[in-house]
């Protein structure tokens, strides 16, 4: 816009200030008759008040004032309609808000903001095609604006037209340099080109360093690309700005847990639990930390809470089965493993757990079937712990030869790992009645 000086030095003074002039007697704003100078009270007299009440969050007062304005102007006050639309949108009444924005558009079709809000409403109502068309017509009304291109980009993303989306969002970033556009672009790139996504996230982090969300998302992307160190750095940055950011804490905790540092992980989870007390993932991980510290009762309570929060989470069910196995509660272990298997029938460790539980419950036929099913799922791939367990099982039910064959296979698969060899030998020699399982089943951990 031009900011040219329109110097308007009035030739004569409008009044001589020798005689103080009395202000007019108050006129009620409702009366809109012909004034002394022949001008009318404009409709937009109180727009500033509506705007102020809206931004200050005094929405009830604002609605009341807007209704008064609308009644006064027979619904023709554009800004009152606009503010009503904005407030209703915040209240979640999108369709009603769209009606108000449509009214605004009728009142002033040349105003880009009106068209933009109509488009946004369509987008929120899940109609990206219509929103796209509206954004298109808004772009024709004036110079390109970042928010229009940003909206356009989001519509394209919704419609799966990723290339056009990238183009629109790139232009939005160039025009507006806003955090939202940067993040939307980075998220879009993350779908197809992680390298570019990381670059985009880095720019966003550099421009808007104080937002932990961006850093968390960057960390996650690094983590998915197996760049653990960078992921750690990004999560650390996020925690600098918000020391209790739940997502960053959960991710860091999971990483510590994976590296066998349950104590450190637990301190992170404790902080996290203050802000995220109802996350099943969090309780699952806390449970497995207690498990690593051999506090089985605490582990069971935490895992049970995880299952209470997300009853169909097969990982928590599997973990609960595993912990029960360690507390020698084989019946419970069997039930949880079986529940987990119904959710994820292709998970081999669950089958192994099931087999061991069944064996402990003296149901060797079923146990054998579970073993065989597990082996079938594994195919011919290496599965040393599965084969080793199977060998011990066969030995115990008296099938010496098959057992030796499986043991041999297990040894080959584990590349003659001395520890496994020792364990196997001990199992073969000792011949205890119902010994503990020697499984090296890894606990399943979740991430954000």
């Amino acid at each position: 816009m031009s900011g040219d000086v329109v110097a308007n030095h009035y030739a004569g003074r409008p009044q001589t200030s020798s005689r103080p002039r009395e202000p007019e007697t108050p006129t009620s704003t409702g009366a809109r008759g012909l004034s002394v100078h022949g001008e009318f009270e404009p409709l937009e007299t109180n727009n500033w008040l509506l705007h102020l009440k809206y931004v200050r969050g005094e929405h009830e007062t604002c609605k009341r004032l807007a209704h008064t304005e609308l009644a006064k102007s027979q619904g023709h006050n554009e800004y009152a309609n606009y503010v009503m639309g904005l407030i209703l949108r915040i209240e979640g009444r999108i369709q009603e808000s769209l009606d108000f924005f449509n009214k605004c558009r009728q009142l002033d079709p040349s105003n880009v903001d009106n068209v933009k809000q109509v488009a946004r409403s369509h987008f929120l109502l899940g109609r990206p095609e219509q929103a796209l068309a509206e954004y298109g017509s808004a772009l024709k009304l004036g110079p390109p604006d970042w928010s229009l291109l940003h909206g356009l980009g989001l519509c394209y993303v919704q419609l799966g037209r990723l290339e056009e989306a990238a183009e629109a969002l790139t232009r939005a970033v160039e025009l507006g340099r806003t955090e939202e556009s940067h993040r939307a672009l980075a998220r879009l790139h993350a779908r197809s080109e992680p390298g570019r996504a990381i670059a985009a996230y880095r720019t966003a982090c550099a421009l808007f360093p104080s937002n932990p969300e961006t850093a968390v998302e960057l960390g996650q992307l690094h983590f998915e690309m197996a760049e653990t160190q960078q992921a750690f750095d990004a999560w650390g940055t996020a925690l600098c700005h918000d020391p209790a950011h739940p997502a960053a804490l959960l991710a860091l905790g999971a990483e510590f847990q994976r590296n066998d540092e349950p104590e450190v992980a637990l301190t992170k989870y404790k902080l996290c639990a203050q802000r995220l007390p109802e996350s099943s993932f969090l309780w699952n991980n806390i449970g497995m930390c207690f498990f690593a510290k051999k506090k089985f009762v605490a582990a069971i309570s935490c895992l049970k809470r995880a299952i209470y929060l997300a009853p169909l989470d097969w990982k928590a069910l599997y973990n609960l089965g595993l912990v029960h196995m360690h507390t020698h509660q084989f019946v419970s272990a069997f039930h949880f493993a079986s529940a987990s298997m119904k959710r994820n029938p292709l998970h081999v460790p669950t089958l192994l757990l099931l087999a061991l539980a069944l064996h402990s419950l003296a149901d060797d036929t079923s146990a054998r079937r579970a073993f065989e099913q597990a082996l079938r799922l594994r195919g011919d791939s290496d599965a040393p712990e599965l084969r080793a367990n199977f060998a011990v099982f066969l030995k115990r039910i008296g099938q010496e030869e098959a057992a030796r064959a499986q043991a041999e296979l297990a040894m080959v698969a584990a590349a003659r790992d001395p520890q496994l060899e020792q364990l196997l030998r001990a199992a073969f020699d000792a011949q205890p009645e119902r010994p503990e399982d020697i499984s090296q089943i890894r606990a399943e951990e979740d991430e954000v």
Partner: protein
Amino acid sequence: MSGFSSRTLQFQQPWIDAFSDSNLALNTLPSCIALADLQDDADSKLIVGAFDETYTDAKLKIFKGTTQYGEVKLPGTPSAIQTFYSDLNKTKIPGIGVASGPNIYVYKNLRPYFKFTVPPQSEVNSLEADIWQQKCDATQLTKLLEDLKMELGFTNLSPASQKLLLLEPHLREQFVQTRGQLALGLRRKTTITCMTSIPKYSTDDEKSISCLVFATECAKLYFLDIQAFTILNEFSMPGIASHLAISGLYVVSYVVIFTTRNGCLYTMNEKKTECIASFSAPSIGLVLQGDFIMTALMDSTLHCFTIQGMKQWSVELPGIPITLASIPIMSLSLKLVAVSCRFRDEKTSHLFFYSGPQLMHSIATPQPVSAIIFGPYGQGESALITISTRGSLNIRLLKRTAQFGCGERAGILALPPPNSQIKLNVPKKSKLLVEQTIREREQKIEIYEQWKRSWLHLNVMTCEEYLKALQSSAVSQNNSLKLTAQVLGLGPHLKIQVFLQNLSKKEAFTSLTVVFHYNKSVFKMDSPSRQVPMLVPNYECCVESYIVCEMSVSSNVTVLVFDEQLRLSAFINIPACNCICSSQ
């Protein structure tokens, strides 16, 4: 809130609660309060523009010390109040400028002194001016204006046209006749949206002569000379300003900073207008401290820019901001920004004090603070005056020994307690659990066997019941099966729902299949045949299938239901739909 003892907090509190009155019911806005030494007696007074509940009437209330000192009824609702010095007289009596509608009312010594009116805009669409110039009767005029309205939009018509269109039809004739001077009525009165002042010649003396600067609803910015009440400068703005600040000296150079309603921050001088930032949420206020611009947004963020347009920092606010104000503490050479926030739970509200992005201090307030002003009040140098949303007035004085940033954070902002203090809420092991565990360990095989037996028993029972149902059902009759179908959607993606109901008392249908027969060039269907689960008596089963129209003609789909033989058939007419999905 948490483990902080309130005593330590009070001890470190830098403010003295000087006065508080919750029965004043002051309904005001941050732009409508000011502090000024109204009588040049070194006793600064508080000026508040107080609205009534409906915002149609307002009063100017003056407070001196702890009492109300004067009151003036205002002729309209004030959008801004600004005090200024306009003369070189020995006794420095400031004028109070009250912007209301298109007028600025100036008061001196609490008496009306002057009224200035912003000249109306005469930019009228030429077409509209032509229409009005034609000598035609009201009906014709209305018709022509209606047409113009469709083209330009109601908002862009002149007030006279708007008025005419809103009138009852029988009043229009009279309206057109009574309006002799047609040209005058086409001008548009404007409204002042925000106002501030700039020193004219020198910044050294606080009581030097200044200029009023105000922005209007027509997106214009004016500089008003308050000695002669003439307009010095007039600028066009890129949008309607919501908040305004200015830095510099009128006769040397100045920068106008303003935010617009759609959430952009601009700087502007004589030569150019520059958009510094365009936010995704509108701004709730603007503070200028030296070269730094600070603004809080509706999305609970606080941003800082330099006057040159460089972004400095942004922080997230702990609550929803209502207003912000500058708190310059000269004795500590500290420049704070106070932000009043409320919280979603509506129970608490706080005043937060930021120095740069650092939160230095906070005060819990019983009611959300609606307006803040800091400056000399009475004899005191630094008073923090707050008016709450429910109209109570609070005056706090700064202690001479006040320190900020020594760790006196309010409880709500306290860092999370150290890790060792957090306890995870993990249930302890109960006696029952121990007993159950022991029993499970001792009698695991028995428990398991028992469960297995029950499981088998359940399976057997289910099978027996199923068999019984199969054996007792007779061969089904056509009339015992009911079919209804409906088509949902507007196209080109449609959903066909087929409802099958078994009306018989005894029999059950086992292997029913629903097949859709359709013209392949018109429709596309993913699953043209569907298995129906067993239909027990009285049960209604719904079979759904999706169909896509590929041609814009109406056609029909035949639904066939059969097991070994055809049981039922139905035709569904599908109307032509306009938009066609191109095959992907």
